[in-house]
């Protein structure tokens, strides 16, 4: 009884909201400040409040698959395809892209600075046994890293120079900065990250490093309890002219964080 009263008191203490949806997203779009900059405009226009869960892509999709989110915004095409095939999601749309970059210490022990070829860079890291930090958290970035190693025909797991930290992008960058290690990062998190120390961008510009962000609505047939209607409004807004303009306007240190691409999705 007392417990119920306490819970009720807490529930009443929360501000009343007309409509609230939960967006399961990746740390890269949240930590970079993108969502904090664009969502107030959406809430103002529609009255829909958005609660952002910033998780890795793997965790975000798992959260949504349990019915605990109303919409997902993620960046791992393969995991997304599985999510759709399992019937959890509908109506996937690309809303923006930027790129992944390979960062590492300015001293560049693997001699990869200035390169464009991601596979050549990873091959050089393995050959020189330069320290490499892996997310190891099934995030979109982690999934791409694993695909790149596979494409380079290298099995780094268990090697002493390969450090699987099991953490988010920020944790991986902090670890790489502390260990003078190479790591794969999305550009948004990198630009807004404030503890770079000796880390610099070493490799960029490879097509294999394209980073696409997709919004996926939940399938109401499979998840009847989710708030499908307001979630659809947000998905439409993100892919529509207002959302796209808002995304394109976000900069960090004079650089664009994301390039809106709903009208012209990058392959």
């Amino acid at each position, binding site marked *: 009884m*007392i*417990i119920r009263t*306490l*819970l009720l*008191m*807490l*529930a009443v*203490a*929360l501000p009343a909201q007309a409509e609230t949806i*939960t967006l399961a997203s990746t*740390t890269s779009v949240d*930590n970079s400040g993108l969502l*904090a900059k664009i969502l107030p405009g959406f809430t103002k226009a529609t009255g829909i409040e958005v*609660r*952002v*869960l*910033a998780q890795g892509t793997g965790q975000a999709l798992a959260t949504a698959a*349990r*019915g*605990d989110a109303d919409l997902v915004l993620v960046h791992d095409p393969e995991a997304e395809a599985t999510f759709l095939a399992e019937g959890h999601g509908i109506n996937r749309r690309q809303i923006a892209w930027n790129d992944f970059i390979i960062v590492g210490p300015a001293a560049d022990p693997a001699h990869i600075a200035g390169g464009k070829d991601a596979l050549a860079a990873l091959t050089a890291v393995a050959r020189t046994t330069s320290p490499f930090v892996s997310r190891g958290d099934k995030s979109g970035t982690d999934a791409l890293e694993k695909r790149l190693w596979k494409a380079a025909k290298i099995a780094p797991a268990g090697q002493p120079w390969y450090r699987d930290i099991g*953490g*988010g*992008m*920020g*944790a991986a*960058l*902090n670890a790489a900065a502390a260990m003078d290690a190479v790591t794969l990062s999305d550009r948004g998190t990198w630009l*807004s*990250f*404030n*503890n*770079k120390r000796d880390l610099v961008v070493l490799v960029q510009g490879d097509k294999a490093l394209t980073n696409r962000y997709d919004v996926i609505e939940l399938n109401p047939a499979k*998840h009847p*309890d*989710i708030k499908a209607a307001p979630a659809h409004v947000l998905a439409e807004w993100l892919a529509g002219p207002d959302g796209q303009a808002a995304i394109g306007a976000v900069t960090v240190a004079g650089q664009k964080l994301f390039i809106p691409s709903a009208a012209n999705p990058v392959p």
Partner: protein
Amino acid sequence: MTAFTPASCAPSNSPNDAVIAETLLPVLGLSLSVSLAATTMAALIGVPLGALLALHEFAGRRALVITVNALLGLPPVVVGLAMYLLLSRSGPLGWLGLLFTPPAMVIAQAVLATPIIAALSHRALEAAWRDYGPALRVLGATRVRALPTLLAMQARPLATALLAGFGRTISEVGAVLIVGGNIAGHTRTMTTTVALETSKGNLDLALAIGLCLIAISLAVSTAAIALGGPKP
């Protein structure tokens, strides 16, 4: 980096600090209200449980004492995960719609604090009952009637029990992160903010918030000791 320095816990006049204070104050408020609510819940269960274990002989009492003490080491992430699975929309209590809300955080933290308060109350009341129980019974007191006297006698160790419970809840990050989701303006607490700012590389800000958290613990502990009696 920000103008928010470890030296300044309170908001100052610079606009940057004002913005940070505006976002931090609700976070601070949530941390305090969730921890206080969880500690209250844990006390309402833990102190009676401790009294039961201290004053009554019953089958399975020893096993229960061992269990309560073993649960002192309850890992917050495991409690968080268990609560997540219970409260998820796919879980048995999903219909409550509590996942990623402050009440879910209160429940998880109450689960963590209850064994601490129960075990420490048990120890405090057990000692008092052993020393003064016979005298109280000679005076005609039953166990139930002796309890208020024992609680009053042991007010200080009991206050320590409550403080230990509060300390567990205000400092905890694993469980609130899983069941709360660290949603800005909704379930973001001091500890999850420290974790988040660290992950963004804002180490100065993370440290400053951490110091605020320690200052709050110090204030709560000072207040509790001041209320508990004249001498610390």
